């Protein structure tokens, strides 16, 4: 589904990999290694070079807004452009079900966005991205500020989306989470991306 060939930008060495529909790649690495740089390059938010294809179509043939709707990105600290939560959704009322699944209190919409907790905002940003039905979702520490129970809820929701074909590229610092959610695990250090299995084999 997503084919990346020699993707590079300052701070990221040429990187190639493929992400199949319904698959999940987990990415780990020390802070400052280039995890966010890679996600932003995939979302085409910063100037970058290399070929990225979605279903065989090069991204420069797809208008950038449409590209970002199909390749969604939820940063570690999601941004909000209005204090009213409902304004961030096309149809907030339709979110009642998924919000309950993610253990977001029904009164969240009555509060100002800045009064929500970091964890609530993180989950709401995920819902906001999912509302646009992306084909690929780039996640930067989506459960970073969450406790075990809510983390499990987020993982379950994403697993369900995955079985409907959503492909995930999941940045996490938690090794166990990487093993839980992803069949392929990548490691990045100083802007160099490696597949963990290969790394293990080389060590052996």
């Amino acid at each position: 589904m997503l084919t990346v060939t020699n993707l590079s930008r300052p701070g990221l060495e040429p990187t190639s990999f493929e992400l199949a529909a319904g698959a999940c790649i987990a990415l780990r690495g020390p802070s400052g290694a280039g995890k966010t740089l890679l996600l932003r390059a995939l979302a085409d938010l910063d100037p970058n070079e290399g070929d990225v294809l979605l279903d065989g179509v090069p991204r420069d043939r797809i208008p950038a807004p449409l590209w970002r709707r199909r390749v969604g990105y939820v940063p570690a600290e999601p941004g909000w452009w209005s204090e009213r939560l409902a304004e961030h959704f096309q149809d907030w009322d339709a979110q009642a079900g998924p919000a309950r699944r993610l253990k977001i209190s029904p009164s969240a919409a009555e509060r100002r966005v800045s009064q929500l907790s970091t964890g609530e905002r993180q989950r709401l940003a995920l819902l906001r991205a999912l509302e646009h039905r992306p084909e690929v979702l780039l996640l930067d520490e989506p459960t970073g500020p969450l406790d075990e129970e809510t983390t499990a809820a987020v993982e379950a929701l994403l697993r369900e989306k995955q079985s409907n074909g959503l492909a995930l590229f999941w940045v996490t610092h938690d090794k166990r989470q990487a093993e839980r959610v992803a069949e392929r695990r990548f490691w990045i250090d100083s802007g160099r991306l490696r597949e963990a299995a290969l790394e293990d084999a080389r060590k052996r």
Partner: protein
Amino acid sequence: MNYIRLDIWDLALAALLLLGVAALSLLLQLRIERRLLLAGLRCALQLALVGLVLTKLFELVSPWWTGLAALAMVLFAGREIMARQERGFHALWAYGIGTSAMLMAAALVTVFALTTQVKPEPWYDPRYALPLLGMILGNTMTGIALGLQRLTEGARQQRAGIEALLCLGATRRKAMLPVTRQALTTALMPIINALAATGLVSLPGMMTGQILAGVEPLEAVKYQLMIMFMIAGGTTLGAVTAVFVGVHRLTDNRDRLRLDRLAGE
């Protein structure tokens, strides 16, 4: 027209006031006397020079010399816009965006006023063209400088929100709309305030000048109203143009926010 001429001694008396307050500053150790006197001196020299140049221009009534003087005014105003940008666009970009937007807006509005309302003979008569352009330029310049500054500041502060909109598939224009609105509100605030407060709080300088020169108050009011409308139109045109070009420069054709194009990044 019957007006009271000032002679050199009247001016000297007025200048004495400046010297007086400078002495006061010295006495109270406020340390503003130097800057005050230098600014006063600079003002006197500049105005004397302008007076001489205008006298010459008014004698010539040449379209070329009038145009040249107008161009010089625009270039000076552009420099002012550039100087007022703090951590905004790089100097050349600020100058380019500011000057071209101002040139377009001020020229359009001044020519409109000259050819359809004031109608001097010839239409470019510097006695009408240059003061009119000066007033429109001064205000348009302030509007553009404020608008560009607020735009770049807003884009920096609201980067996360703008990029969130982009990530959900907004075009660059749509994602920048909130900051665009804020920038234009800031740019137009002074002129909107001036429109609202004129007459109640302040008597505009031009109207005061005409009244002192012996013009009937109601005639002066008509002139002032026309000027205010021209200023409002020119400021809006200039600020909208500059802010839209600014938005274009702050984003690229892949709908990315390009804060790296600002100074100090």
